[in-house]
């Protein structure tokens, strides 16, 4: 009879585990991805290879801030296939106003494209991001540069924040100003907490000293006035250290919460 109880408990645990696994599996299947179509870059004054490099840079920028668990940046092949193949895609409009129509055709949730135009010695860059369902523009990046490589630099640096960072659910890019700031806040918080703990520990040590001084005072091991002064001095120092440590510790926790 005694053996039955552990068997029942084990069976229940096993069943609960199996249920959890089944739930997890069901949840995985229920994930609905947000799709982003990065359309092939357009413009004039550049060779095909350069447009492709720019498109790749755009995709890299998207992948920097869009978590792969819930977002899917459609591959170039997938975008072209959804738009009816290379030939059909080229037949469709390439004007800026057509980005939305292409996004709609590709059945993507968000659509973006980088356009570059060479005007004399200056290259103009324009990136637009639209929410296909609402047909609203939610991100834009403009800039100019003298060299094509500089255009890629602008996209690499700014597109994760000014374009893809505008998509709800996007993360802050690692290494960005925001990312660096978060890192600094984290370590500042840790530093304040450590300092607070150390000061409070010092306060505790003073408390011990105060008790010893108080014991000596009671046992009359030292002269009356000096023994009591030591107790008072230790008590004051202890209180100051406790307060200072508490403030530092609370500040550290505050930094973690607010930043």
């Amino acid at each position: 009879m005694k053996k039955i109880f552990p068997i029942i408990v084990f069976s229940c645990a096993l069943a609960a585990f199996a249920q959890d696994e089944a739930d997890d599996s069901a949840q995985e299947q229920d994930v609905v991805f947000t799709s982003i179509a990065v359309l092939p870059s357009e413009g004039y004054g550049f060779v095909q290879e350069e447009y492709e490099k720019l498109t790749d840079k755009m995709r890299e920028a998207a992948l920097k801030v869009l978590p792969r668990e819930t977002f899917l940046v459609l591959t170039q092949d997938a975008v072209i296939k959804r738009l009816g193949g290379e030939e059909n895609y080229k037949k469709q409009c390439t004007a800026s106003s057509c980005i939305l129509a292409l996004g709609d055709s590709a059945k993507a949730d968000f659509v973006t494209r980088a356009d570059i135009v060479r005007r004399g010695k200056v290259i103009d860059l324009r990136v637009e991001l639209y929410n296909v369902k609402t047909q609203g523009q939610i991100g834009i990046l403009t800039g100019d540069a003298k060299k094509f490589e500089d255009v890629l630099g602008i996209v690499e640096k700014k597109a994760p924040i000014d374009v893809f960072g505008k998509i709800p659910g996007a993360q802050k890019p690692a290494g960005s100003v925001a990312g660096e700031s978060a890192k600094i806040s984290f370590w500042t918080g840790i530093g304040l907490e450590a300092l607070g703990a150390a000061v409070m520990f010092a306060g505790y040590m003073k408390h011990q000293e105060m008790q010893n001084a108080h014991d000596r005072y009671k046992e009359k091991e030292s002269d009356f006035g000096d023994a009591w002064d030591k107790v008072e001095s230790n008590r004051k120092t202890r209180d100051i250290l406790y307060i200072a440590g508490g403030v530092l510790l609370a500040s550290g926790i505050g930094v973690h919460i607010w930043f």
Partner: protein
Amino acid sequence: MHIMRTAIFLAVFLPIFSFAENSTRKALPGELRQGIVPNFFVLEKNGVNELFRDDIKEAVNKRKAKRVVLSFFAEGCLFCMEEFAILKDNKAELDKQGVLVYLIDAGDDIRKKGKKISEAVKTHAGGLFPLYFDPNFKLLFDFGLAKRGSDPNLPLTLILDSDLQAIGLLEGKMGDDFPQLLWSEL
């Protein structure tokens, strides 16, 4: 007088009842009269995996199917759910006659309603037919089955032959002539 009333009743309502028993056929729009249906794709319930026209063609060849039914529906459409029950009840006959059925939700947001729709389809169609989504009515627009700015009348049932050429279009709930009409002359 009583006989007269009965006669009038029968004269008015019998044709309606007898008419309601058959499926309502609609003329094919111009977009579907030019051989194989226009290229298209629909999405799975995860919002990204696609089913292309060529995938259906491949399935037709693989299973030697004779007919393909694209059943367009939407969340909250009662007739659509009744239609699922008809499809479910005729599943064995559809398989026997080589009919591939695809349920395509039209116009609903996968993210907001996908789960609910999947569950409703599972309940009413028994999970016997593959479910896909056309979230922006794009497919219906491209097929000429809906116009921009106005919601289509659902359910719509598009019947294709094994070459994926449209051979019939039914509007509203299927009638008693379903599924026989799939292999009879439409």
